[in-house]
Structure formats: C-alpha cells, structure tokens
C-alpha cells in the first residue's frame, strides 16, 4: 500500500478544503491523519493518505490551480508513544529573530520531544505554544534552562504539566 505525504499551500478561499478532498477522493485516496490551518491568510494543509500512486495524486491536485503542492511516498510509521510526560511550553514577548530555534533547541537538549507547536505574530507580540513529551524527572531542570534562554531573548516562558483528564 502506498502511503503518501502531501502538502497543499495557497491563498485561502471558500471551498478549498472540499476541492482538495474531492481531488484526492477521485483517485481513491483515503485520508488518514491530516491537519489544515490558515497561516497569515494562507491556506495550508498537510496530510497522510493511502491508496493512489504519487503520480496519480499529483495529477489530481494539479487541477486545483493556484496552490503549491508536494506529494511524496513515505514508509508507514506509527505514533511512537514512548511514555514521556506531557507538558506545555508558552513563550511570549517582543518579536525577534531566533525565538523558535533557541527555545526548541533547549527543549531538545533536555530530551523533550515536541509533538505539536504553533506560533503567532500579532502586532509586536510573538507567541509560541509547544506541546512537549518529557522524559521523567527533567522538568525542573528544563524550566530553569528555559528561563535562562528566555532572559537572553527578552521573552517570557512558562513550562507546565499538560492537563489530560479522561472522561
């Protein structure tokens, strides 16, 4: 079974998600995991699907016109739940170069695996929220290291345990 990784980026417009989904359905693609959002008004969609060959999927998406697409075959992988503890990192402050790289490097050096991340720039305010799986027992030290990095960047940072009640 082909597993394809596909990205679609272009100007946002009503119906774009339906058009992408329809084009892929037309070549028998089964969307497994996907995410779609708008980034500064650009439509962006990233997805994994099974079914069609790379050429078929590319041809189907080329009918969409004003978008940039990429399609590539990937080896099937499964979510690795290696038992880390879920945490959330918030960073906010004046926008400057290198906030994401500095913060994520500190997280990586502590063995933290970022599982989800979003950033927003609104006016002069830059906001980064990352969900991180941490190895047991490193959170206090990571909090200190993040505080040092944040002070150098002139931004605020908090690290806290993620809430996840099962109801």
């Amino acid at each position, binding site marked *: 079974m082909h597993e394809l990784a596909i990205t679609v980026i272009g100007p946002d417009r009503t119906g774009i998600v339906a058009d992408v989904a329809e084009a892929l359905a037309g070549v028998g693609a089964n969307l497994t995991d996907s995410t779609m959002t708008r980034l500064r008004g650009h439509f962006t969609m990233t997805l994994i699907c099974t079914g069609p060959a790379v050429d078929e999927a590319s041809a189907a998406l080329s009918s969409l016109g004003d978008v940039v697409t990429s399609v590539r075959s990937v080896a099937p992988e499964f979510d690795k739940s290696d038992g880390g503890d879920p945490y959330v990192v918030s960073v906010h*402050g004046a926008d400057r170069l290198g906030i994401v790289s500095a913060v994520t490097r500190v997280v990586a050096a502590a063995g933290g695996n970022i599982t*989800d991340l979003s950033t927003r720039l609104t006016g002069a305010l830059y*906001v980064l*929220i990352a969900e991180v799986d941490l190895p047991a027992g490193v959170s206090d030290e990571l909090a200190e290291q993040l505080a040092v990095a944040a002070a150098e960047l002139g*931004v605020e940072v*908090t690290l806290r345990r993620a809430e996840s009640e099962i109801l």
Partner: protein
Amino acid sequence: MTAPVAWDGPQGNVLPVVTAPATVLSTVGDEVDPADPAVVQLAADLVATMRVSPGCVGLAATQVGVGAQIFAVDVTGHPKAATTHGTFVLCNAKIIEASRWKAGREGCMSVPDLTGDVKRAGRIVVSAALPGSGEPVEITTDAFEARALQHEIDHCAGKLFLDRVAGAHAIYQRKVYL
C-alpha cells in the same frame, strides 16, 4: 441590590491600556496599602477605564502600567455569569479555595488579537482588602466571575492567559472584539 464589596469611591480618570509585549504585564505587582489615597485613586481609575472599554469585565493595575496588586471586576449581565458582586475593586487578592476546574475561552484587553482556552476553577474563595477602608473581605463566587477573578489575580502576579493556555491549538486569532 448592592453587594457589600461593591465599589463606592470617587470618580476616576480613564487611563491608556498597555498591550503585550509590555514588560509591566510580566512583572509581579507589589502589595499595596489599601488605605493609601493614591491606591484609592488608582482603584477609581481602573473602574473608570473598565467602564469605557467595550466588553471589558476586569482590569488590573499592570494593564495600565502600574505594577501593583489591585484590580477591578464587573461581570454584571454577562451571559456566563452566575453569582455576581457588581462592580468591585480588590487589593492584594489571594485565592484560598479553588474547585470545579473547567476549560473556557478567554481574552484580554492587553492581548487584543488573541483568545485562548484556559482551565480555571468554577468555584473559588478569594481573600483581599477593599480600597479605602482596607476592610478584609472573603468573596465566594463561581462561573464567569470566578474566571474573571483568576484572570485578574494572574495579572497581579505578572501572568497572562497565554501562560496557561491548554495546548498548541488552544490560541485563536480574534475576529470580533467580544
């Protein structure tokens, strides 16, 4: 009915509201002397500024550039409010009991373009002092007033809702000013 904590002070001045990334918003406020005339004036100014700001249900001193533990709240008439205490101002407020945690969407005049999902206690007891008299009070409240109090007490500690959002997809670009 006028609640015993209701604000009953002088007319204040409308002050400009500062927005993130202003440093003062991330500064821990100093405890205040509630009987200090300057503190009473600040209380009046917070109420005046809150009242002229559409949709504003609470305003802390850090949001007008003053690093002090004092804030105004008024959730009267808000659809998500249950218990309400009218317009009131608290000094040096502390949460002494918190329960019934629940996620909800909130915004902030100092972060005008974003909202976020934040877990807050749905029932709290807060101890504080009233400006002017300095009278110690304990306020028990719930629902939206409890959320507003926790948001403002966070401001007094130099925290924004951004420091508490639930996850990477729990912040949202604001489309209309609520």
